[in-house]
């Protein structure tokens, strides 16, 4: 579906998504016309979905980030649906992932400081429906965070 030219374009775009098209064409070694044709096609087939700004929550005063690894009570048939619906309503939850494995759901939660985190944890998170077990991982640092696909 994608050929080497597409992959070269995607590699350069992933490395610097803000690059102007003329510079991108140069780095990927294609003409401006080829570039726009390839981009158009990758959008059409749904490979290229768009761009998003990355928010640095620390700069907004949210110094704490915690990964909550959650096991649900699966004897309840609506456990996943009810839980996810309620978790989406907690403003400090910035990411929800579901898994096949030892963990059912992971929530990424941000807070201003430890007392604020405790408040959210007790009032909003421990009260989520069908929760069977919770484990917390506190983020210390991000060593690599580019989410680049090795195309």
């Amino acid at each position, binding site marked *: 579906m994608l050929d080497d030219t597409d992959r070269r374009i995607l590699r350069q775009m992933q490395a610097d998504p803000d690059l102007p098209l003329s510079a991108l064409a140069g780095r990927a070694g294609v003409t401006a016309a080829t570039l726009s044709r390839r981009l158009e096609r990758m959008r059409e087939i749904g490979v290229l979905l768009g761009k998003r700004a990355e928010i640095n929550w620390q*700069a907004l005063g949210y110094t704490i980030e915690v990964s909550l690894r959650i096991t649900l009570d699966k004897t309840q048939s609506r456990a996943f649906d009810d839980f996810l619906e309620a978790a989406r309503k907690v403003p400090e939850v910035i990411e929800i992932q579901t*898994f096949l494995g030892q963990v059912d759901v992971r929530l990424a939660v941000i807070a201003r400081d430890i007392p604020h985190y405790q408040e959210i944890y007790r009032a909003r998170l421990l009260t989520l429906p069908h929760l069977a077990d919770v484990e917390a991982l506190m983020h210390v640092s991000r060593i690599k965070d580019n989410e680049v696909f090795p195309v």
Partner: protein
Amino acid sequence: MTDFDATDRAILRALSRDASQSAGTLGRRLDLSQPATWRRIKRLRDAGVISGTRLILDREKLGFGVTVFLGVKLATKGRISLEDFERAVTAIPEVQTVEHVLGLYDYRLRVVARDLSDFERVLRRRIMTLPGAGHVEANVLLSEERLPGPLG
């Protein structure tokens, strides 16, 4: 921390969903002029609140059918260097993110692979051979959603 008002938060919300819209388009939706919107975006970037732009790609259509999160516990702490582990794990192309965490595990990795057998290859040849890697727990990603966060 600098103060950001409701308009700044609305801009952040909009750009975190779609960063390809121009300051003019975004401004019209927020009842702001193009230059005023542009100035606010620049201020958010300068303050580091917008830390960068990410490409949104369809991972399945790119051919990466499997995403696995690994919790890695280091074997004998003190005997191995965190820097060596971090340098080696960062260099693996299939490893998209590396987070140093406190708790049950020492590191949390996001790994992409073509399929399960490709993942097994990455796990055996790349992850298990990392300097100091001890216990590894794997969870296969089924679904993922990003939420706007506390932006009012």
